[in-house]
């Protein structure tokens, strides 16, 4: 009994160490991200100047421009990773991410329509993007429903509906190729020019979503054992699957509404978390959340500093750096997962 509790503590210890390391990295990244940019400061300088009385350029840049952007990156990274982690259990498919359930395609459809056909309503873009994402997701689930929701049917109806919506978006873009810059920025997911206003809106949604995602841990774990096993353990499989999907759609749709489509985070981060702490959602979900925040903040910081005078959208940085890194992780520790 004694060795048992000791061993149990070892598992918790491992997760705690990983979490603490990731949180330290997050703190360092926040500090670095606040310091670097077109105007570079040292950390000491930032600390001194922001606590000074009165207004000064350092204070304005750090507090009004960089800080909200840093916090947004953290929130979005956390939400997208949590969303992807939950969906991978819902679908029992390692390739599931928020794009699978139509969140990206739905938001893109709504955004292109607003930006290209009704530019007068650009101000309410986030609202429409959210609604589009939710609607596409609902459509996919209702098409997949046949006495219950089967993951394969969700994925297949997702492919079908995503392709229809994709075709519509492409057609719109072809017909309006002269005014595409706004749409392109949305499609590639960018945090450029985001302020406290967006942060405040998103914070409410994301925090609700993230709290809800912790309620999903037990059912996410049970779904990993297969539907029949989960059912015979007393889990309401359909209800769990829908609740988990709803939480992850809510999280992903909120981020899409504010920052556009940032791919790859929801797919890759849960896998890296799994390699670090294993498949148990009790450890994997919190680690995914913090790791997602780390990675998105890093990607955004790189994107806005690597080429002086130019911003590379975080979605593009994410895809370019994330892919090879993921492959590296897979080859290095692939024996544990994915066979």
């Amino acid at each position, binding site marked *: 009994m004694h060795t*048992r509790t000791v*061993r149990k503590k070892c598992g918790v210890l491992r997760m705690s160490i990983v979490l603490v390391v990731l949180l330290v990295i997050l703190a360092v990244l926040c500090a670095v991200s606040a310091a670097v940019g077109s105007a570079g400061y040292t950390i000491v300088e930032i600390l001194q100047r922001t606590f000074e009385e009165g207004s000064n350029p350092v204070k304005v840049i750090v507090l009004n421009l960089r800080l909200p952007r840093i916090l947004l990156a953290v929130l979005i990274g956390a939400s997208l990773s949590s969303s992807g982690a939950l969906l991978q259990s819902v679908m029992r498919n390692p390739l599931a991410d928020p794009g699978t359930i139509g969140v990206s395609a739905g938001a893109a459809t709504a955004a292109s329509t607003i930006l290209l056909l009704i530019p007068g309503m650009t101000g309410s873009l986030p609202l429409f993007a959210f609604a589009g994402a939710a609607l596409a997701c609902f459509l996919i689930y209702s098409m997949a429903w046949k006495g219950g929701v089967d993951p394969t049917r969700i994925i297949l109806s997702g492919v079908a509906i995503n392709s229809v919506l994709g075709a519509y978006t492409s057609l719109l873009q072809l017909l309006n190729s002269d005014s595409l810059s706004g749409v392109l920025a949305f499609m590639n997911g960018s945090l450029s020019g985001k302020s406290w206003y967006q942060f405040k809106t998103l914070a409410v949604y994301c925090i609700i979503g993230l709290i809800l995602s912790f*309620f999903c841990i*037990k*059912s996410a*774990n*049970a779904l*990993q*054992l*297969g539907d*029949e*096993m989960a*059912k*015979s*353990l*007393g*889990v*309401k499989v359909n209800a769990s699957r829908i609740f988990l999907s709803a939480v992850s759609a809510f999280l992903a749709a909120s981020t899409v509404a504010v920052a556009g489509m940032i791919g790859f985070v929801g797919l890759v981060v849960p896998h890296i978390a*799994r390699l670090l702490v*294993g*498949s*148990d959602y009790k450890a994997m979900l919190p680690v995914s959340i913090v790791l997602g925040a780390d990675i998105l903040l890093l990607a955004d910081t790189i994107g806005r500093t690597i080429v002086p005078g130019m911003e590379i959208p975080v979605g593009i940085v994410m895809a370019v750096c994330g892919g090879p890194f993921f492959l590296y992780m897979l080859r290095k520790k692939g024996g*544990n*997962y994915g*066979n």
Partner: protein
Amino acid sequence: MEIDACGLQVGYGDIIVVDEMDIHLHKGEITTIIGPNGSGKSTVLKALTRLLKYRKGSVYLNQKNLQKFESKELARCVGVLPQRHSAPPDFKVKDLVGYGRMPYQSWYKGNSAEDEKIIDWAMKATGVYEMREKSIQECSGGESQRVWIATVLAQQPDIMFLDEPTTYLDISHQLETMRLVKKLNRESGIGVVMVLHDLSQALEVSDRIVVIKDGKKYSEGKPEEVITQKMMWEVYHVECEIVWLKGRKAPLIAYKEIC
């Protein structure tokens, strides 16, 4: 604890897989369902445990309609080991067995001291206690089957349903699994209902056998009464002799030479 099914009809889409099925199961007995591929054995098992909906008929568990059970309440009475199950390869044995306690826990609670005790008991009873820290991927086929049985056992069900527990195992692991099932039944009085393909094993371990042919019950009774030359021919279209060997409790089936 007993299960009473009457006039059961189960199907998928337009196809009726099982029809007019009456089955009566008791606590403490080992009942084996046999029959050719596609005859509806697994379907019966799933309908009895509510993994599948039935269209007609009724199932009563301790005189209570199966449909009236809460999911968790049902999971505390019957445990099912489905034919297909999977766990993430890095799950530890003791964690997987721990999932058997889910029907007793609310969604926010972890294992209580009582749960831990039962998990340990289930692992000891199935002989996997020594490898509790191993991950599933480190277990052999036979070991992992014992781990899954331990998971079902941790549910503390009155009746345990095993859907082809020996398929995909080599002969030594098949025998080991059967021995384990028999031992669990004898020692803790748990009822077992299983689907088997190996008729010799069915003959030896079962208290009762139900033969299913084309979705209907062909016969039911004590092993040696049910497994006869006539049944083998009518149900499986196989010629054989039932041979009694000296010193063995159960007869053997000698199939007609293949060529």
